[in-house]
């Protein structure tokens, strides 16, 4: 499903990110860290979405975010999910020309 604006694309990214967070939470010893990490990056992504309301997204950037969502959807290992809780937002932000 293609997005037309940056906030729409980030909304889809955040939905996928929530699923990734749930997978990372399976590592009980890291539950708090996982949630702190997700909170920090979610705040960054939401901040960018708020700042770019109405901004049309470049099709290549939209496709990049879609690919990144597909990539984290493949992850089954909760340890790898935790690593991607940091990596995914960086990839998404770079795709739309933002600094992580």
């Amino acid at each position, binding site marked *: 499903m293609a997005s037309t604006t940056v906030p729409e694309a980030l909304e889809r990214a955040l939905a996928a990110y929530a699923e990734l967070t749930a997978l990372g939470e399976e590592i009980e010893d890291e539950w708090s860290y996982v949630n*702190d*990490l997700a909170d920090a990056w979610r705040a960054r992504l939401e901040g960018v979405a708020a700042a770019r309301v109405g901004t049309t997204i470049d099709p290549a950037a939209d*496709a990049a975010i879609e690919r990144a969502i597909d*990539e984290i959807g*493949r992850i089954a290992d909760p340890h790898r999910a935790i*690593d991607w809780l*940091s*990596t995914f937002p*960086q990839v998404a932000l770079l795709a739309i020309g933002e600094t*992580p």
Partner: protein
Amino acid sequence: MRFQDAARDGRAVVYAGIQADPLVKRAAALLAEATPAQRVLARAVMNGETTDVTSWLAMFPALFGPSVPAGHERSRSEAILAASLEVAQRGEQVRSQFRGAIVEELTAILLARRTGEAAVHRERRILFDGVRAEIHPYDVTVEREGAAEAYDCKWGARGISDDVLHQLDDARSHAADEDVALRAALVVFDAERSCLVRLGRLNAPHDGTTIVPLESLDRIAAPAS
């Protein structure tokens, strides 16, 4: 304070083989020249699920998109992608070791730009008079009279632990007890934001330890300001 080679136990011998792998050298050399975005690419691919090159090309339009002209930057992005995919294809356990070795090698390359190769050492213990020696060696050290440095290297923010922070802080404080300056630093191939979250959950002292996240890696090659 004095430096000493780490014991060559079985693990060290195996790991030395990985450290000497040409792929580690090649990837680290590329990443030493890389932009922060190219380093994020390497981080993603080396820890990725897919090894389909077209997926990664599409995922990083700022590096591979139609607006990026042919030239050094694009060529380097392509070389980093190729090397990272080679790491990713090694299998989970092996690529984990490769990733660690690459961050260490990258750190050594960047440090050598500032200090010269002769001063940079790997897998060294630091001994202090009257203090029981740590078993775990430091990943990279700079051994210069009056300007020693000790580095541990981590692939991700999750690798930052109380143990690692204690060891670095202990080295710095024991050196200070001997009136010797020792810079202690932790290089993390991950975003500063993630490092700060991790540090916020740990109790070990780290005010005297420099945290070097992915965005700031080039700082360790620059003269102190």
